[in-house]
């Protein structure tokens, strides 16, 4: 299967907005909007306990779902160890977060528009030697507050919690954290450890996105409409 069709399959909210899966992402959007009534969520981070649970797929589709609701969204790829956002949206990864942080380019240069209306992305840029320090720096705080002025919502993609400390660091800078759990894959112990790691730095865990739920478990609403 070519890279293009593979990406299209993953951006299902864009390619098949009427599909049940796209509907699921809209449900997620709605539930997030309600969970942030008192304290509006302006920066939302997505992570998982272990790799390959569907963080990037979730964040890409959620970003599109927000954009479809006429929200000005920036998708920030803070997974500098294994960046994927540029691949998913088919944009260049030359200027990105690393470039901004090291002063090689301006914020505006690093922000790229996508084919989805209202959705911009800032890719990760070249892989730096010290991602954790970069995310922990004051410059990161400044960048986030600057971006908050420009966008309604910033979605942040991060590495898995249990692999590196990046997600823990970013979670202290974001209003809310979503934990993606691949159904039938993630062991209870690992899930608990991931939650503890995030709770330790006082991250605001909004809830869990249960990903790749199969058949019966997915429930009947899967088949609603055509």
């Amino acid at each position: 299967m070519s890279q293009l069709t593979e990406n299209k399959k993953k951006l299902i909210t864009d390619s098949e907005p009427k599909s049940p899966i796209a509907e699921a992402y809209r449900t997620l959007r709605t539930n997030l909007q309600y969970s942030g009534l008192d304290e509006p969520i302006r920066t939302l981070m997505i992570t998982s306990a272990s790799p390959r649970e569907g963080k990037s797929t979730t964040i890409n589709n959620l970003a599109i779902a927000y954009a479809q609701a006429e929200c000005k969204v920036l998708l920030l790829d803070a997974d500098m160890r294994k960046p994927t956002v540029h691949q998913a949206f088919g944009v260049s990864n030359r200027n990105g977060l690393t470039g901004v942080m090291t002063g090689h380019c301006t914020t505006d240069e690093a922000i790229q528009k996508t084919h989805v209306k209202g959705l911009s992305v800032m890719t990760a840029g070249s892989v730096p030697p010290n991602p954790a320090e970069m995310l922990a720096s004051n410059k990161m705080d400044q960048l986030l507050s600057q971006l908050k002025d420009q966008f309604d919502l910033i979605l942040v993609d991060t590495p898995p919690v249990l692999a590196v400390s990046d997600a823990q660091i970013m979670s202290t800078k974001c209003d809310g954290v979503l934990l993606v759990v691949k159904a039938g894959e993630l062991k209870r112990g690992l899930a608990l450890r991931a939650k503890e790691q995030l709770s330790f730095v006082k991250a605001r865990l909004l809830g869990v996105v249960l990903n790749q739920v199969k058949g019966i478990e997915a429930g009947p609403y899967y088949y609603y409409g055509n």
Partner: protein
Amino acid sequence: MNVELDLKQVMTVLRKKWWLVALITILGTLAVGIYSTQFVKPVYKASTKLIVNSGSEIGGFKLDLNLINSNISLISTYKEIIRTPAIMDIVAEHPELGTTSDELISKIGFNSVNGTQVVTLSYADQNYKKAAKIVNEVSAVFQQEIPKIMKVDNVYLLNEADVNKQPVPFKPNSKFQVAVGFVLFLLCGIGTVLLLDFFDDTLKNAADVTAVLELPTLVAIPTIRTPKEQAGSGLSKNKKKAGETYGVTAN
């Protein structure tokens, strides 16, 4: 983890993994079937009937209950006598039977019929003719030797085994074995599936997430499938339930 077995939960698990139950059952039953029809050589059983009845020396037609009872008691004694070399060595002397007295002792069957004076002698072998010959010979020798051992002549042969009969295998009983195998492997399959589920330590649904992480599940996203794959799944089956938002908790 909730150890309590919830029937509904068990049914859900079985429904999800029914193919594994079916696979184990079918393979197991098939294996039993093939084994019992192809690998186990059929065994045939030949039998003779003897009656233990003394009292001929009293003469006349007189049925004495004590006499009958003592005859019945004698059967137990005979049962042991027949399993001694005293009888079997004589049988084994016939070379055409091709057997030893030890083998005879272990394979001969001696059963009295429910408190009667009738005794069934049986012998099972893969060759029916051989079994019939042996059992006939044993009966004859037994009848011959008992008066010498017990000093009473009270064993009579009722019927001999018919050497030329078309035999029906006494075992294996293939149908029975397959039936038992089916039930056993069905239980085995169900057990395996439940055990696998019990040891499955992963988070599978919103209930697991709530129980373990104490976090709300904001959404359950189904596995992304191509439209072709989706067309194959039961659309109409679930339509009546449309509108429910299972696994979605508004927080």
